[in-house]
């Protein structure tokens, strides 16, 4: 029986991008459904498939929904494991725990700082910029001299973090700073990831992300 895979998503969502990358890495065919009016009018399908959070991404596999991007990526990794495609989570339990720990760290720290940076001004924004850079530096430290967070191979933590790269231009423009200036190794890693088709085809255009941030700013009354 052929698998039916549907992804409810939103072009600019870094969480959605993670799932797109994982599906591409595994060579899974799926139907992409864009939530056109995510901010103001969520579709009945989304509300039915994710009644708890009403958020994208949602992976619908043979009619059954899976929610939360990192949970979806792990699900994809566990279900589609025998088709000669790359395995995203490390096979060693300790390395797996570390990958999960850092992915959790990304969502706790980077997401939060990223959210604040386009809303804030002056001193507040300066403090948030500092937080964001410190967070990225810690991640850079974790990468070390390896080509990927997964070591020689692109893995779970790479998927978790690379999606944010499409938002860097928006953060930099709103905050008037350069991430590359502070974290050159991380940017080198990001460019390396972008050489992979699964990544370059899945990430949103940074200019479109910035346009979306302008819409958000207007919606939230931020000058």
């Amino acid at each position, binding site marked *: 029986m052929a698998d039916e895979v549907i992804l409810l998503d939103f072009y600019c969502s870094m969480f959605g991008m993670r799932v797109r990358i994982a599906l591409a890495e595994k060579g899974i065919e799926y139907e992409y459904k864009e939530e056109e009016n995510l901010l103001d009018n969520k579709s009945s399908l989304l509300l039915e498939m994710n*009644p*708890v959070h009403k958020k994208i991404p949602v992976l619908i*596999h043979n009619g*059954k929904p*899976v*929610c*939360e991007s990192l*949970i*979806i990526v*792990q*699900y994809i990794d*566990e*279900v589609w494991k025998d088709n000669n495609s790359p395995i995203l989570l490390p096979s060693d*339990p*300790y390395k*797996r*725990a*570390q990958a*999960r*720990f850092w992915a*959790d*760290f990304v969502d706790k720290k980077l997401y939060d700082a990223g959210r604040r940076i386009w809303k804030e001004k002056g001193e507040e924004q300066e403090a948030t910029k500092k937080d964001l850079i410190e967070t990225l530096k*810690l991640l850079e430290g974790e990468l070390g001299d390896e080509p990927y967070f997964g070591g020689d191979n692109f893995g779970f933590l790479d998927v978790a973090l690379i999606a944010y790269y499409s938002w860097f231009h928006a953060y930099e423009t709103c905050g008037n700073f350069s991430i590359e200036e502070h974290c050159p190794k991380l940017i080198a890693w990001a460019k390396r990831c972008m050489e992979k088709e699964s990544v370059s085809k899945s990430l949103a255009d940074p200019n479109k992300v910035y346009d979306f941030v302008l819409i958000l700013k207007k919606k939230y009354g931020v000058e």
Partner: protein
Amino acid sequence: MVEVKLLGAWGSPFSRRVEMALKLKGVEYEYLEEDLNNKSPLLLKYNPIHKKVPVLVHNGKPIAESLIIIEYIDEVWEGPSILPQDPYERAMARFWVKFLDEKCMPAMWKAFWSTGEEREKNKDEAIEHLKFLESEIKGKKFFGGDTIGLVDLAANFIAYWFRIISELVGVELITDDKFPNLSKWADEYINSSFVKENLPDKDKITAFFNARIRAPDETKYFPKA
């Protein structure tokens, strides 16, 4: 030689989750109590990022974050499975524990410690979240089915700690009539012999939260409201 250490705190539900998981697997470990007002160099060395308990140290290698630690324990040691085997069921278990920690816990906590109109608003939010848990536990003895699983371990704060606070601050969230299934689960969970032996002393917890009621600005290990 297998060496397992756990840096924990007697009153922390996060710490107790991990202890429960270790005991479920029959793992022998050395427990090190942390004074969270005076964190040890060991804790700062093993969890420099968050500086929190619990931290599991296995053959010298640290793992932090209770739910990540429990998945690690489940993967490394034989014994009863804590996570389901089926990938879809696993995804659901992970979904619910995230929901518990990111939505239920903060909403209930805020409801307990706020006042007036804020409190009513927070209560409403907490109840909305709890309704989803009520549906999820319906027809099951434990969230894990017939046996205790990841979600039961994660929901420990609801069954024990928050019941105590609820009584002390006079904010009832999980009543028998509004949440019959969740109430039943909570009773089942804390009275199951395995869990009962591994909960912190009720009087000590009561005294701890009474102290917080008297001096709310001196927040100690639990998150600020």
